[in-house]
């Protein structure tokens, strides 16, 4: 609905929920100020760059998650996709393949697993939450069976410059994140495909009647999220140079939280990439700051959960008069 009545869709950088971005930005500034008063280490270049690098995978995955949620879907298996892709990347490196061969393999794995979710929801008509819960189990089974409880360690860091390098003063990871979000923005805002995503999120039945190939759009969108998870896996391996057993366990829920905090509607049809990016920044700053201030990082889930409740309640109260919310 919003996408259709949008007066100037092509020029919009800020979502229809612009107030959300501003509120989130203000919160980030306030939280950042509190942390930098509490800890002298918070507002240092090295700490912020470190936080940026640590948030690379979450940022990339959240971009794809935003597309899926705008389409009215959800994917809780994305951590499993990341894990399986990382393991395959690790095994490929161990088999002696060069980086330029490993990278496409990793991206391909992610895409295939994402498309698998898409087929489950689009063709087998399994509701996305159930489908991806199930495939999360399956992916973690694959992961345990392949990795067998051991780490894959000592992988080459051929792609490390993408994470750790700098271009001039700008960290390479920032450029990677911006490139990913720019690509997502082009897909969502400039291509007909993005319009289809919005249409399905607003009203799937109408989208079908208008002649949009709903099934294909769904599969492609889930595959895009899978592709981004594969990319995140590639960068994870480049950053850590190993694959550990609990890789990707919390990333799906964090990505969903970042997306929702950023103003994307869980009902679909409304969303903002900029908001998601701010949501990721918020979550990572929170994690980093709590550790620096000396508060147990266990409180972080409480804070994220509490904030989600507040944000969702505020949304619900604001949309009371909106017929769409019924």
């Amino acid at each position, binding site marked *: 609905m919003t996408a259709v009545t949008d007066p100037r869709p092509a020029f919009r950088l800020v979502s229809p929920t612009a107030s959300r971005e501003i509120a989130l930005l203000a919160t980030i500034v306030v939280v950042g100020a509190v942390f930098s008063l509490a800890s002298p280490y918070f507002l240092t270049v090295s700490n912020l760059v470190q936080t940026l690098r640590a948030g690379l995978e979450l940022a990339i995955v959240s971009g794809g998650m935003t597309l899926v949620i705008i389409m009215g879907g959800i994917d809780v298996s994305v951590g499993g996709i990341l894990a399986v892709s990382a393991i395959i990347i690790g095994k490929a490196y161990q088999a002696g393949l060069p980086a330029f061969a490993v990278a496409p393999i990793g991206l391909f794995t992610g895409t295939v697993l994402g498309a698998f979710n898409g087929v*489950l929801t689009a063709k087998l008509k399994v509701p996305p939450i159930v489908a991806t819960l199930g495939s999360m189990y399956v992916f973690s089974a694959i992961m345990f069976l392949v990795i067998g409880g051991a780490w894959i360690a000592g992988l080459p860091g051929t792609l490390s410059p993408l994470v750790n390098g700098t271009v001039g003063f700008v960290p390479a990871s920032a450029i990677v994140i911006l490139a990913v979000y720019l690509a997502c923005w082009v897909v969502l805002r400039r291509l007909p495909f993005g319009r289809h995503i919005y249409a399905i999120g607003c009203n799937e039945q109408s989208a079908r009647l208008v002649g949009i190939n709903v099934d294909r759009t769904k599969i492609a969108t889930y595959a895009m999220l899978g592709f981004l998870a594969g990319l995140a896996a590639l960068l994870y391996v480049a950053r850590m140079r190993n694959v550990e057993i609990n890789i990707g366990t919390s990333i799906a829920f964090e990505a969903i939280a970042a997306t929702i905090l950023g103003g994307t509607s869980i009902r679909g049809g409304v969303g903002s990439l900029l908001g998601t990016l701010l949501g990721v920044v918020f979550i990572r700053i929170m994690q980093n700051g709590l550790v620096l201030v000396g508060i147990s990082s*266990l409180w972080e889930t409480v804070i994220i959960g509490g904030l989600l409740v507040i944000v969702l309640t505020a949304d619900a109260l604001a949309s009371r008069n909106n017929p769409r919310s019924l």
Partner: protein
Amino acid sequence: MIARNSRFSASDPLRARLLVLIGLWIVSIVAMSLLSPYFLQASTVPYLLQYVPVLGLLGLGQTLVVLAGGPGIDLSVGAIVSLVSVIVGALLAVGLNIWLACAAGLVAGALFGLVNGILVNYLRIPSLMATLATMFAYGGLALATTEGRPFSNFPAGFAWLGLGQTFGIPNAFLFVLLPVAVILHVMLTRTVIGRHIIACGNDDRAAHLSGLDVARIRTGLYVLSGVLSAIGAIIAMSWFMAARPDAGKGMELLAVTIAVLGGTHIFGGTGGVPGAIVAILIVTTLQIGLQLANISAAWQLGVIGVLLIGSVSSLGGLKLRWRTGS
């Protein structure tokens, strides 16, 4: 007249479903006894029944929440188990009587369920998101307040519930799960409240127009799910003689699997207690069997994932065939 019609159409696919489930259970028993020579022994039965109650209570609560439609789902049940454990353990540690501590735990469970119910039904936040947020909040609180340390100063008599047996059957099964299942089954099939729950799940608008307070009924079921989770927490504590702050970790996914596998339609309106009970037995049989056969936990995950996806998509197929057949 209308009531009889709806009862007929609601029970018909369910009966077929129940037969399929019982068949599936027999298949899994045969498969497990082939895998492990220890499985098909009389001593396995109490061992199996020992595992059933906690998961069973959560699965039954989930079944009712899903059954009432909305679409409803309660992802926070595992977190409620953890948080109630912590509350009861802490109250016991400050010297409260065990009975009072457990009663307080039940009240706390009801309150947590009430919060879920209000968020979902009165603020109209999609259930998936609301309970995901409270899952973060409750589970995070349980871990953060205790810093992950368990409480373990339970009186010896407390073990009666979780470890004791009467006539060779675990007490928790005989005196908790069985009565709860019977009561819920009678409530669903023989009382007005049960009819109202099914009506809400079938068509909430029609239910609303015929004078039902849909939001209140659904909220009541979230409260019930919270109370059942609290009972589950007490059984788990009595079983381990410790209150672990991560006691319910991962249980929400198993609870959803049980509800959906048991034939409850994910969008509500169809389903019931008998299917859920057989689904619990299937899941537990698989877990115990694979454990006895010393097969890695990864296979359990994989098998449950396939079951989850398969049960939803096959339910769709079954319904379709049933409709075209008539």
